Structure formats: structure tokens, C-alpha cells
């Protein structure tokens, strides 16, 4: 499959008055055409910051992208997102890369009708006339399952429920037929029955339009249902990357194993204790010069405190940044 995004060694820091926040510490990954890549992590893991860095959505200052490349597209149209000017990035955003945020209410303009907000992108990026853009906006709203789109297009964001607002965001994201959609916790604020509607809708659209989706979430349940491949992040690093089946069946990183053990499951008895990961999330103020998980890791030994573990590849579909092979308890060769 064609690779449409290749990120290499992305480093993003925030220079705050309290010190330097080491938010993203060398993130590398590839995104293939049409696939769903889930980025999983807890708060402060760097999952959102790394993806927002690609789109130039990090406030600079205090944020600063220190290094890295992000090759987007294929063939002669390939370019490094991190080297584009603001104006060039603006043309990529919304047109070639769409995005959906957790809280649609804060990303929609409360003073403009939904129709205006969708057509705006169509006029600007695709050069449609106002009238054509309006018709296209109605078609898009119908496509994402908003009943009575012709009337609803004149409504303001507050007149929609949470689930409907997220549908509007999705309509905006797909308006210009992007190659990639970056969805940052798109269902986290929604109730579980509405979440199921949204994940369903996304899957349908993706199949129809062949869009690649980067789905940022903390919910390993949602990931199991939507993802082709998964990146697990901790302390600003990708600690494990695998296709979805391998990740759940043969997790390799002690953090992934811990996370899966900490989840209660609806389909199992629910007796006994959850295996908790002791300790607290990492302190991002100190520069990363060892494994970020070492402090909470039951397998940690001296080396974990001395160097950052490199990526070890397990077959073609899995890589893990950990010195220890958990199954045997031995150091990896």
C-alpha cells in the first residue's frame, strides 16, 4: 500500500515559565492510504501534540518543533509539512488533511450558521460559487446523517446536540475529500450509544471515500473496533506500534500489557482485581534520557535508566521500544 505520510523523529517542546515541557521526544511512523491508525495514550503522552505539530496547530511560542520531517503525499507532490509556510499549511489543512476535535462546540463558530461554516471551506479550497457551495453543504450534511439538512443548514451550532455537532464536524472534515483525517478524541465527550453512531459513520465514510484516518484516543475499547494499526504512546514516545490484532493478542511493551490489564471488560466475569500500573504519569519537565516508563515498570533494570530503548522489530507488523522481552523476562538481543 502507498505511504501517504511518513513522520521521522518529530520533537516538540514547550518553553513555559515553569520550565521546558518535553512533550514529543522523537516520534516516527508511517501512514498508509485508506487505513485507520489509532494513536493511544494517556493524558500527557504526547499523542495530540505530535499530531497537531504536523498540522502547524501548535501555538508558537511557547511551543517549538525542534526537529523532524513529515513527508506528506506521494510522487512529485510529496512535501515536508514541517517546512511549509503558514499560508501553504493553511491550504493543506482542511483541503488535503481534515480534522475533527473532541469538542465540536469550541471548534465551531457560535455566530455563524452551520451552512456558512461548511461552505466557507468549499469556496476557499475548491473555488465553488456561494450557491454551489451551499448545495454541496446540504449534500454533505445529508451524507453524515443529519435529517432535514436543507433546513438545518440555517441553524447555529448551539441548536444541535453533541452527537449532531460531531456529525457537522465530520461533514466539514470530509468537505474537500481530504486524503487524511486527523480525529482527536472525536467520541470522548459523547455518550456510549452516540459514540457507536459516530464510529459507525466514520467507518462508512472511510470505506466510501478511501480516506486514511489518524484516530487519537485514550480508549482501548474504541481502538479495537476501528483501527487497522495502533501506536501506543507514553512520555512523548511511541512505546509500541503494531497491527490491531497483534497489539491485543501479543502486546510486547510492559506499558501496553499494563494498560490492557487495567481495563475492566464487559464480556468477562469481572471478578478479582484489575492489574493497576503503580505510580504516576511521567514528569515531562525533565529531558528524556532513559525509558519514560522505567519508573513504573515491573521489569525495569539498570539499562532502562541509562538509555532510551531503541525500536525492536518483531516480525513485520510490530515494533516495541523496550529492552526486555516480557514473555521470557530476558534482555532482547
Amino acid at each position, binding site marked *: 500500500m502507498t505511504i501517504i505520510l511518513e513522520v521521522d523523529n518529530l520533537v516538540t517542546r514547550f518553553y513555559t515559565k515553569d520550565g521546558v515541557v518535553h512533550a514529543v521526544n522523537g516520534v516516527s511512523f508511517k501512514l498508509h492510504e485508506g487505513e485507520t491508525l489509532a494513536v493511544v495514550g494517556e493524558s500527557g503522552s504526547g499523542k495530540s501534540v505530535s499530531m497537531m505539530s504536523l498540522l502547524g496547530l501548535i501555538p508558537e511560542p511557547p511551543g517549538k518543533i525542534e526537529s523532524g520531517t513529515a513527508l506528506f503525499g506521494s510522487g512529485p507532490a510529496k512535501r515536508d509539512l514541517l517546512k511549509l509556510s503558514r499560508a501553504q499549511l493553511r491550504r493543506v489543512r482542511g483541503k488535503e488533511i481534515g480534522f475533527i476535535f473532541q469538542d465540536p462546540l469550541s471548534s465551531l463558530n457560535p455566530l455563524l450558521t452551520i451552512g456558512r461554516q461548511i461552505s466557507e471551506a468549499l469556496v476557499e479550497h475548491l473555488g465553488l460559487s456561494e450557491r454551489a457551495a451551499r448545495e454541496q453543504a446540504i449534500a454533505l450534511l445529508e451524507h453524515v446523517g443529519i435529517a432535514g439538512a436543507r433546513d438545518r443548514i440555517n441553524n447555529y451550532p448551539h441548536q444541535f446536540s453533541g452527537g449532531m455537532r460531531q456529525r457537522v464536524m465530520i461533514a466539514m472534515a470530509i468537505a474537500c475529500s481530504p486524503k487524511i483525517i486527523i480525529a482527536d478524541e472525536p467520541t470522548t465527550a459523547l*455518550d456510549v450509544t452516540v459514540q457507536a453512531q459516530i464510529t459507525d459513520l466514520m467507518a462508512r465514510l472511510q470505506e466510501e471515500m478511501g480516506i486514511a484516518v489518524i484516530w487519537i484516543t485514550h480508549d482501548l*475499547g474504541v481502538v479495537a473496533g476501528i483501527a487497522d494499526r495502533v501506536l501506543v504512546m507514553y512520555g512523548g514516545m511511541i512505546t509500541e506500534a503494531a497491527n490491531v490484532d497483534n497489539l491485543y493478542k501479543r502486546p510486547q511493551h510492559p506499558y501496553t500489557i499494563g494498560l490492557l490489564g487495567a481495563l475492566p*471488560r464487559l464480556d468477562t466475569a469481572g471478578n478479582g482485581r484489575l492489574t493497576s500500573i503503580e505510580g504516576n504519569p511521567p514528569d515531562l519537565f525533565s529531558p528524556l534520557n532513559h525509558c519514560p516508563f522505567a519508573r513504573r515498570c515491573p521489569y525495569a533494570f539498570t539499562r532502562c535508566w541509562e538509555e532510551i530503548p531503541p525500536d525492536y522489530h518483531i516480525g513485520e507488523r510490530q515494533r516495541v521500544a523496550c529492552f526486555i522481552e516480557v514473555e521470557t523476562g530476558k534482555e532482547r538481543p
Partner: protein
Amino acid sequence: MTAKPLLSGRPLLSVRHLKKYFPIVRGVVISRTVGAVKAVDDVSFDIQPGETLGLVGESGCGKSTTGRTVLQLYRPTSGDVFFNGQNLAQMDDRALRDLRPQMQMIFQDSYAALNPRHSVGKIIGEPLVVHNKASGQTLRHRVAELLELVGLNPDYARRFPHEFSGGQRQRIGIARALALNPTFVICDEPISALDVSIQAQVVNLLQDLQAQLGLTYLFIAHDLSMVRHISNRVAVMYLGKIMELASRQELFSRPLHPYTQSLMSAVPIPDPEQERQRQRIILTGDVPSPANPPQGCVFHTRCPLAEEICRREVPTYREVQPGHFAACHLIDEQSSKAER
């Protein structure tokens, strides 16, 4: 219906026909009541000593209001709440104050619930001071003991809430709730704001404390998997009403109410293989407004099985099988038609 207990054995808490309506007021100068939000609408359940009753539902279903009304933090519109046989709904504030040490609450947002200007020691010790239970050396001693109980360093008493992570702050909230040796604790979404790895820590702590201190919990949450993990029995709420209540085993293996069934089918399972095989019941639309709930069964607008009667008549909440309660016209007492 009379106030007979719903289960054999003497319950610690019996809630009967509890209602909490919030008036909708229009007009600033001349205000008048134009309607009511029926946040809790005729809810009955029991909690046995030492058990955990899970109360689960989507946002706006009235689960938190139920918790607060049980503790009389909101006074009920009508209905009774018997705690150890005494009716809290009929008590004046003074009499309630004497009972309060026995009934405590843990909140979702530990940051909002802890006063940022008070040291952790002061926060945890405050209930003891207010109820004249301890002072001076005894107080400091008890605070240290409580901190240890919830797995925190006793030296933390001198620190302030902002110095702690979310999980640690929730531990502080738990220590404060336990200061007066309560028998009954309402946990209102105690882990919803926490990261997964920290959630497990707090849930394990709550379970340990229950075993150690013989606590009785009302565990309010929207996360069905977590409710299943921690509860002995589970009640499912929708638009101010309990749709179904049964033992954990019974509810999760044989859910009878169409709402419970669709709720369960919407919860993702962390297993890609299972996710691919699952047949989802996807409900259409959103939860209607509790200010203007549907006629008849409140769930009929989204129910995949709704019939004519569901639009007309409110289903009675009844014991369809021993210990298994549900409010649905389509559940046949014997054969459970709605079951799949």
C-alpha cells in the same frame, strides 16, 4: 405499592418512589414556573449492607441527582429514603446533620471538591473538626492514619491540592469521605476524570476499603464495564427512571430491557476479534430532554422494539423474575419476550 423491601434481608438503604423535579423558571422581574425537569422520576431500590449497587446511565439520565437526593443534598420533590429504617426525607436539617457522618460522598472532580487554599491535612481533618470528633494531637494522628489508609504518605498533610496528580487527589477525596467512619458512601463517577492506568488503582483501593471497613457503596458511573467490575447489583437509568435492576450476573448475562441491551451492545470491547464479530444494536438519535420527556415509556422514541402501547402507557417498574426488576411493556414475566 407499599414500602416493603424489594429484597429479603434488611436493607441499609431503601429508596421508594423518589422524585426530584427542578422547576423551569421564565422571566427575570416577574418570574413564573413554566415547567419542570424531571431529573429523578419515581425511582425505587434497596441497598443491602456491605454491597455495591452500581447506578449506570448516559449523561442527563438523573443518576447523579439520584445520589444527591438520596443524601438529601437536594431535598426530594416526593418519595422516601429510609436509611437504617429512618426516613431521611422527613427529617429536618438538624436531625440530618447528626446522621451525616454515616453517609458520605466521593466526587468526580477532585480538583473542584478540594479547597485549593487548604492544606491536605486541613481538608481531610475538616469533617472531624466540624463534627467535634477530634482536635489537636488526635486530629493530626487521625489525618495521618487516613492518608496511610488511602495509600498516601502521611507527610503529605502539609501539602496543597495542586501539588498532586489526579489519582492522588482522588485518594485525598476518599480519605476525607472516610474521616468520620461512614457506613454508606456514594461514589459519584469517582474515576471518570482519571487515566486508565490510574482508574484501576482507585477502583482497587475502593474495593480494598470496602472489604476492610465493611462499607456499602452506591457507585454511580457511565462506564458499564467498570460498573460490571465493581458492583454486586446494577441499576440502569434512562431519563430519570430505572429501566432495569438485577444482580450483576443476571443483568449482564440476560439483560431483559431493550435499553440495557442496546447500551451493552454499544460498549466497545477491547478485543479486535470480538469487535468484528459483534452485531451492534445502534440506537438512532439522542436522549430526549428531561424537561420534555416522551409520553408513555420514556425510551419508546429510540427503542427498536417499540409498539403502540409503549407510546401510550408508562410501563410499571416491576419484579419480572425474582430479584430482577424492569420497566418495559414487552417483557413477558415468564418467557421474557424481549430477550434475545
